[in-house]
């Protein structure tokens, strides 16, 4: 059978359109189901109360606090380390086999499955450094996971600062480090922050890395220090869905909705920060 070129084009466009539209379907379905079934469970009590009766009633407050703690501790380790690495690679390091090794390592770090990070964290932080199952061990594991995202986006942000700014500063007799501190970093900051937030939102929802390193099955109290275990939303969701019999489905969907909402909120912040800085940026 032979078609005219116009007809072929039409068929191709329709197929391409369908393929692109399929991408939207799972997103809409996930959100719709979560909101429809989870929203009724959401209430002030649900967000601020301890779980009761073996998690079959009450709220998810400790899991929310736990996730926030983990996210905060992880980023306060990963951000400085990642930014310093990026500054070194972009501003100081010469291109040689050593910097290529570092770059390959970063790419590979991004490709490691999350469960492997979990086992690595268990081996290194929990057992070898004897931090035990604790926020410290979990946050450090998450920090390593965030590193590639933060380094890559920081590098891009640093490289996007025009060369002419650096030259202008150096030609005034300003040292390289002062140039980085006063000219390069302030102008790269929005990009770095966006990367940081994306790094956070990626790890906030991870279950496997915290499974062996920090997450508590059922701990209806708040952590007192970074050496405490804590509950966390993703693991709590996993537990509610598979480990505890007779849980009201609304609780499960409500927890999932809170988790997705938190990650969504973080991404939204990143998008807003980026858009605002972009509109201000004049170079």
């Amino acid at each position, binding site marked *: 059978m032979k078609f005219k070129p116009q007809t072929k084009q039409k068929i191709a466009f329709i197929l391409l359109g369908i393929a692109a539209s399929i991408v939207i379907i799972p997103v809409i379905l996930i959100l719709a189901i979560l909101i429809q079934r989870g929203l009724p469970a959401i209430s002030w009590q649900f967000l601020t109360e301890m779980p009761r009766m073996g998690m079959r009633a009450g709220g998810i407050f400790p899991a929310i606090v736990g996730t926030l703690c983990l996210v905060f501790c992880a980023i306060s380790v990963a951000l400085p380390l990642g930014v310093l690495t990026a500054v070194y690679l972009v501003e100081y390091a010469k291109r040689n086999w050593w910097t290529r090794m570092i770059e390959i390592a970063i790419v590979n770090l991004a490709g490691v499955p999350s469960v492997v990070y979990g086992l690595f964290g268990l081996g290194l932080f929990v057992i070898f450094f004897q931090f035990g199952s604790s926020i410290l061990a979990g946050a450090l594991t998450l920090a390593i996971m965030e590193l590639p995202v933060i380094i890559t986006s920081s590098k891009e942000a640093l490289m996007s600062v025009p060369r002419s700014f650096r030259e202008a500063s150096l030609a005034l007799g300003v040292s390289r480090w002062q140039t980085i501190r006063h000219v390069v970093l302030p*102008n790269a900051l929005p990009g770095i922050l966006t990367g940081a937030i994306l790094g956070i939102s990626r790890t906030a929802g991870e279950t496997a890395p915290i499974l062996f390193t920090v997450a508590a099955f059922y701990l209806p109290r708040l952590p007192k220090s970074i050496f405490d275990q804590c509950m966390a939303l993703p693991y709590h969701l996993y537990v509610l869905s598979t480990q505890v019999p007779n849980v009201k489905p609304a609780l499960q969907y409500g927890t999932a909705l809170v988790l997705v909402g938190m990650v969504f909120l973080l991404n939204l912040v990143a998008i807003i920060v980026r858009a605002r800085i972009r509109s201000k940026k004049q170079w």
Partner: protein
Amino acid sequence: MSKIETKNLDLFYGTFQALIDVDLVIKEKMITALIGPSGCGKSTLLRALNRMNDLIDGVKVTGKVLIDGKNIYEPGTDLVELRKKVGMVFQRPNPFPLSVFDNIAYGPRTHGLKDRGKLGEIVERFLSRVQLWDVLKDRLEDSALDLSLEQQQRLCIARLVAVMPDVVLMDEPCSALDPLATQRIEELMFELKKDYTILIVTHNMQQAARVSDWTGFMLLGKLVEYGETKQVFTNPQEKQTEEYITGRYG
């Protein structure tokens, strides 16, 4: 009085030799112009004088550059001190994305001056120096990027002279500007000559003839001819120079 002297200066980008055996003596408080076709090495020579070429990977320099009698390619030379003394204005105006005030104050601030009042005096003094004070005194907190290109270039010159250099290197400082703005920047250069030794790279021969006291003509990495501007333009000693300035070459 010679301020800068290059002796047997060679510069390589990797295997490409961009400067070949350049010997140049630059007089203090004069304007020296470097002319020549694109790619002749004039910008490279300019950047060799405050070691801005160091930023490029694979650059190798042999020979000497003496500034006030001291070889700046001597190991252990303090680049920060060198560039405080030998500053640079670039082809495209490159103010920082900061306010007018912060642009001028940037140099003195990073060199340790914190007193807001003193910084204010400096800003006024150097904006006046480039005839921007009257126009901008009420717009000190505006972003420097909102200024016209000419004002931006003046601001960059003010930002540079605020760190009190001896030598000002200008790399085609007017090529982004219209003819009127160019003329006004040239007037400013005359005015600055009283206090600074100025080197300007330009591919605008009229500009070189108008503003400079001394002119060097470069071709393919060599300094072909160097002399007083009047002599170079009216009675060039080399055939290549004559061909270039009469427009038959380049």
